[in-house]
């Protein structure tokens, strides 16, 4: 066991962890931040997506020890200061960008990163960027709409795929 410290959503946390402890396990089981989900546990589905030092990563495929000293942002850190939903979260609610909601934390984390890199993405660019985030409910239709809306763009009729 080793002591691991990281800044999560602006607050410093320390806890003991084994070498094999995954970042997602550290967040959920040591820090009790259970908004980050474990879907497939094989780095396919993206439900565990968080930001580490400003980059989106799959927290199920990174060891906690490798985030020692890092700045981590999880879905719990996304709301506005007053606790209200931020622009992306609100857009997911407004456009029904979720049904069961299991993939949503990862979707929001990935979509947020996309708009940082590309503030006005096309529908195709959104679909490409979300290749690593799988949703089994929505058919992606309303997720795409939500992200277009959050980027301040008009929403043409988005064809279901």
């Amino acid at each position, binding site marked *: 066991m080793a002591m691991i410290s990281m800044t999560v959503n602006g607050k410093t946390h320390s806890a003991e962890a084994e070498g094999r402890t995954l970042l997602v396990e550290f967040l959920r089981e040591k820090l009790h931040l259970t908004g980050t989900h474990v879907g497939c546990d094989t*780095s396919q589905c993206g439900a565990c*997506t968080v930001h580490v030092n400003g980059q989106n990563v799959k927290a199920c*495929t*990174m*060891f906690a020890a*490798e985030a020692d000293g890092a700045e981590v942002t999880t879905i719990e850190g996304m709301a506005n200061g007053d606790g209200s939903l931020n622009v992306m979260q609100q857009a997911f609610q407004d456009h029904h960008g979720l049904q069961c909601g299991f993939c949503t934390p990862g979707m929001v984390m990935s979509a947020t990163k996309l708009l940082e890199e590309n503030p006005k993405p096309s529908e195709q660019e959104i679909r490409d*960027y979300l290749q*690593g985030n799988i949703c089994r409910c929505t058919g992606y239709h309303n997720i795409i709409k939500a992200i277009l809306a959050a980027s301040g763009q008009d929403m043409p009729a988005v064809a279901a795929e």
Partner: protein
Amino acid sequence: MYDFELTRPGTLDEALAALRAEDAQPLSGGQTLIPTLKQRLAMPSVLVSLTGIEELRGITREDGALRIGGGTTHGQIARETADSFPGLSHLAGKIGDPAVRNRGTIGGSLANNDPSACYPAAMMATGGTVITNNREIAADDYFQGMFTTALEEDEIVTGVRIPVPQSSNYQKFEQPASRFPLVGVFVARFDGRVGVGVTGASEGGVFRWREAEEALGSDFTPEALKDMSHPADGMISDLHGTAEYRAHLIAVMTRRAVAAAT
């Protein structure tokens, strides 16, 4: 996962010292190794993380080639070679997905030598060099079959040198579930020679399609390959495609890559 000790050295020398422990194994981005560990297909006693080693990261230009540190991620390569080597940038930018590209590294990919990995095709087509802590190995000598390389015990990929072609293109026919190439072809055109590297197709791992290289050397057009097909002998047959199908794809992807690179 079996339990192991994880160490994070800050320098290459410390990493090499740590790797001398019995059953120690290097860990780069972990996008293949961590799933492997989860399946209990590997049981290292010590994992030596290379991700904290600054000297293994970064891209520099040297004399007609790019020198890329082994710990450089696919995402960084995609972003930073967009102007200097668009063919490589495009290849790196289509590996996995954005989150995977922020962790996975070129050194880790080359050390693993998955028969469907993308970089080996570019390394073979360009005549690249794998640089380790001990020596430099030409791509032709480095790749020795599926998951097999010239790397010896305690030898790690510290970087690569990839000659920058006049023009190049990578075409990957994706297996839609894994997004690994069912067949991927990298075509690189230099002054006086053309390289064609094929990944995903062969039971022997990545290879150069020398017949196509020769034809394209004198006539760099898709038409130069019009009557050429690759034999199905030795190609992979599995539930995703037969050997004949993969052989067919090699010619199709090569023609597309030439058309895109012209």
